[in-house]
């Protein structure tokens, strides 16, 4: 039996990159949701939550159209000389970011809300600018939420299948990630390979969730004495 581990590394790379992008994009978005009094808030919150209820194939289908050569975004990326994103690793990152967005934004949003306005008001009366209040007070106090969001987004990206199949296809080394590889092995009746990869996924998921629980417990102890 020969077990090709390329999909494993590709998956880890995709999940790491997606999580990093989500930390940068999702944290300010969650902050905005927790602070704004705009009427757009509920609309934006709903859009963020949409991937939770939509079948991944629906998300993937529209992404394929939007990012393809005839879609508005695809036309833009082509004009910028970036080519089109479907069936590339970059396209997978875009799809994964959207698909895992709620898993990052919701815990972080909840963490920001749980802080309440008081610590931020205290910081303002101590001359802290809005940016300083975000960096010195909101982020450290929301750290457990950020960690939860990052772990969930990472794990969710690792387990992704439908969106990837729609916009990434099955190109070895480029878009053939773990879940797709398992599907392939099963299709080709390569049970042993499927077992190794699937079993590895179960172990990995178990360890991720366990680590998150343990860390969360420790942080609650430190944070609230």
């Amino acid at each position, binding site marked *: 039996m020969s077990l090709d581990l390329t999909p494993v590394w590709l998956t880890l790379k995709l999940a790491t990159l997606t999580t990093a992008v989500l930390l940068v994009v999702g944290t300010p978005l969650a902050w905005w949701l927790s602070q704004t009094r705009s009427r757009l808030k509920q609309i934006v919150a709903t859009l963020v939550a949409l991937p939770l209820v939509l079948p991944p194939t629906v998300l993937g289908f529209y992404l394929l159209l939007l990012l393809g050569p005839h879609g508005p975004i695809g036309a833009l990326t082509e004009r910028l000389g970036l080519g089109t994103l479907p069936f590339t690793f970059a396209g997978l990152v875009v799809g994964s970011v959207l698909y895992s967005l709620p898993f990052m934004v919701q815990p972080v949003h909840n963490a920001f809300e749980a802080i309440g306005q*008081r*610590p931020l*008001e*205290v*910081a*303002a*009366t*101590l*001359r*802290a*600018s*809005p940016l300083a209040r975000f960096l*010195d*007070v909101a982020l*450290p*106090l929301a750290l457990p939420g950020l960690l939860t969001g990052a772990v969930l987004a990472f794990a969710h990206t690792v387990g992704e299948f439908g969106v990837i199949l729609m916009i990434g296809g099955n190109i070895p080394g480029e878009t053939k990630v773990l879940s797709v590889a398992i599907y392939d092995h099963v299709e080709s009746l390569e049970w042993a390979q499927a077992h190794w990869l699937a079993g590895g996924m179960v172990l990995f998921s178990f360890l991720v969730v366990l680590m998150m629980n343990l860390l969360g417990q420790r942080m609650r102890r430190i*944070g*609230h*004495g």
Partner: protein
Amino acid sequence: MADVLDLAFRLDRGDFSLDLACRVPARGVSALFGRSGCGKTTVLRCVAGLERAAGHCRLADACWQDDASGRFLPTHRRPIGYVFQEPSLFPHRSVRANLDYGRRRIPARERRVDLDEVVELLGIAPLLGRDPAGLSGGERQRVAIARALLTSPRLLLMDEPLAALDHTSKRDILPYLERLHDHLQIPVLYVSHDPDEVARLADHILLIEAGRLRAAGPAPQMLTRLDLPLAREETASALLSGRVRAHDPCYGLTRVAIPGASLMLERLDRAVDETVRVRIHARDVSIALDDPGTSSILNVLPARIVEMHPLGASQVLVGLAVGTTPESRLLARITRHSWERLRLHPGQQVHAQVKAVAVMD
């Protein structure tokens, strides 16, 4: 010319409206006094810029809000210190880091409040290395007060800083507040619904009712005005300012002259001619028609009845002017039975028997 805090705020929130304008001397402690929900905290939040009402807010020559010119300074640009009702220390920072949070944002040449002095005044030196989670409520509030002071504010805003504390912590922290009052030249706007606290701390009182300013004035006057609720409190008292005249080493007493009379107090550790503020509770004053000279009560002051207000069915509150000076006021809480038996009436000369005198500072 003394600095003035000039406020005008209007706010309408359906079930609550605020509409008040006042000029307060920016010196000593000015208390915003009123029932819960009367809007005093909202006034404080508007001064801090945490809430936005229509109107204006100026301290001396600095303008923080002026709707006429569209000016509204955000909270972090106002030179204020704010102490919240519940001690809101940052849980992720040590006590020392909490203190430094505001202090390090103030340029060194603008720091007028010394770290060591504040730490000493509030007695928090032993707490500096600790985490807020391990402190008692009273300790946390003392740290929060120090943290606010270390931004060298031009105005300190305190929102019922003792209300969330238990009785013991409250008793522990009051002397610290009184020391601040005496040692630092920072004007304080102090929100409270506790008449006892107000009498102990305030130089100036603003009485707020349902979002409106009912009355304002120097504390000694406001506390003894029978038409205001402060004088009708169970703990109602009069504030008198006097000067040490002499010590009597033989009996261990000190004589303090107040306008219109003098008081004998248990020996005070003060130099002759030093000023003393004393507080006399209405329930500790009784009225006699003539100087008995046969009583064990040390202080019997000649006084004139100015006015009377009935308190319930059995008691009356009597406003007295000490000696012949109208500004030296005392309150006496006596039974209606005595009032009628002695045929007391306004304008009458009587003797006020003072059972207890508390020295304020």
